[in-house]
């Protein structure tokens, strides 16, 4: 008991030092003992309150109401880490190193060099956690039980990875490009979070090393001072606090490529990353077509009115959204929603539809997006062992009284 008291006191001290704001929806400490954890809103230093999934490593999702906008504010942008040691990068000391066995001249760049020596570009792109909505799978799957908020849309400014790689020179033997950030595990034996990309994706003109997000430097918790942006691919490749890029002649065989973030080949389209595919499994790559209602919550009661606005967002892995259809009677009838401004094929697209209910009552609202490739959302999620790619048509019930 002495140890525990000690621990509380020490932690409380460090809380004050961190300036963290805790907004616990609890009556007291007793409620936290046991098996039930209620939804906890908590703010990491420099952030505003988000839905806390885990404290350490920090995993925080954005409440859905912040998605009722073209871009997600930096202070409300979700946070996802695999390992708990997350250094505060000192910009004078930070260097980006380009190396690997398939690079001609290894390079070392300061942020200043990265900003000045290469052409800057800006792109709107959705950053979406592979496991977003994992918590909605039935039966449940182990892992962070994300709701719908492990994503955000932002304007990213940076330089093209292909320009930086050209500066170092790529050998003919190049097959993959690995990416490492400054974060690491507590134990030396914990696999560092390193990902790789197939060479073609690394050289894609939309793949960036970004240093700004929505016109500001990247927040610490979103990868300061520089992170990868792989528009159209899930956020597992968007390495934060980027410090090393290696051009490799052989498939990268780290834990986070070989074992984690993999999906069965027979259930999803393959061929995006052939050097990492086995007979049965492959890495998750492209974001699947999806949508979300952003201004209404499941179970919400509203006063009956002549017209009820239904707003939402829709996205896919880069084909762009062709249409969104809305149903107010559980899928019997569908109505085409109006798509709002197009910020590019990697951005989410806002949509809206005006529902004119004839009478009060219970309404089953659904939204279904279709991409320009003709793919649309399934009614049920596609089961897979790690709970990725949940893109089932959302069904919510509202009461008009």
């Amino acid at each position, binding site marked *: 008991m002495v140890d525990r008291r000690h621990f509380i006191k020490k932690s409380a001290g460090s809380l004050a030092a961190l300036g963290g704001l805790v907004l*616990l929806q609890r009556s007291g400490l007793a409620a936290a003992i046991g098996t039930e954890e209620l939804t906890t809103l908590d703010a990491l230093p420099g952030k505003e309150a988000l839905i806390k999934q885990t404290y350490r490593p920090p995993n925080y999702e954005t409440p859905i109401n912040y998605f009722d906008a073209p871009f997600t504010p930096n202070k409300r942008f979700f946070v996802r880490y695999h390992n708990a040691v997350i250094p505060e990068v000192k910009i004078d000391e930070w260097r980006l190193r380009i190396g690997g066995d398939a690079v001609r001249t290894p390079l070392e760049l300061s942020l200043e060099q990265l900003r000045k020596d290469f052409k800057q570009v800006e792109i709107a792109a959705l950053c979406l956690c592979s496991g977003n909505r994992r918590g909605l799978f039935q039966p449940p799957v182990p892992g962070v039980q994300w709701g719908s908020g492990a994503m955000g849309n932002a304007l990213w400014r940076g330089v093209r990875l292909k320009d930086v790689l050209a500066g170092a020179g790529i050998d003919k033997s190049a097959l993959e490009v690995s990416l490492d950030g400054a974060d690491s595990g507590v134990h030396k034996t914990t696999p560092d979070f390193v990902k790789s990309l197939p060479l073609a994706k690394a050289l894609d003109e939309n793949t960036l090393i970004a240093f700004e997000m929505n016109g500001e430097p990247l927040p610490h918790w979103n990868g300061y001072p520089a992170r990868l942006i792989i528009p159209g691919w899930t956020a597992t490749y968007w390495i934060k606090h980027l410090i090393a890029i290696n051009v490799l002649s052989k498939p990268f065989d780290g*834990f986070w490529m070989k*074992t984690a973030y993999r999906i069965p080949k027979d259930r999803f389209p393959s061929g995006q990353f052939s050097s990492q595919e086995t007979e049965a499994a492959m890495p998750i790559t492209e974001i699947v077509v999806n949508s979300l209602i952003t201004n209404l919550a499941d179970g919400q009661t509203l006063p009956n009115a002549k017209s009820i606005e239904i707003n939402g967002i829709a996205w896919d892995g880069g084909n762009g959204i062709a249409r969104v259809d809305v149903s107010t009677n559980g899928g019997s009838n569908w109505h085409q929603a109006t798509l709002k401004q197009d910020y590019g094929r990697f951005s989410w697209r806002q949509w809206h539809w005006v529902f004119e209910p004839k009478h009060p009552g219970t309404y089953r609202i659904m939204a279904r997006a279709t991409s320009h490739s003709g793919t649309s959302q399934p009614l049920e999620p596609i089961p897979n062992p790690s709970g990725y790619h949940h893109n089932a048509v959302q069904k919510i019930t509202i009461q008009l009284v």
Partner: protein
Amino acid sequence: MRTLLLLLSFFAATATAGESQIFLKDRPGKNQVVAQCAMCHSLDYIILHTPILDRTGWEKTVAKMINSMGASINDADKQIIIDYLAQNYGK
């Protein structure tokens, strides 16, 4: 005790707001769970898996932490941890 002291100094440096408000059930095995698991992650990871993992699930998870994630836990502690998690935080 030495592990706990190490743990305390580690938390003081890296704990984020609110983590100190998570308490696991005070049953045999808790000390081993806190000492080993909380080295690398907050204990809310355990609570959030309560509706998901049965004994077999916890066995797999603890084995993953040792074999894949680099936790160095001896066989005796491993069994104590699995029993504690299965009995107190099992589906």
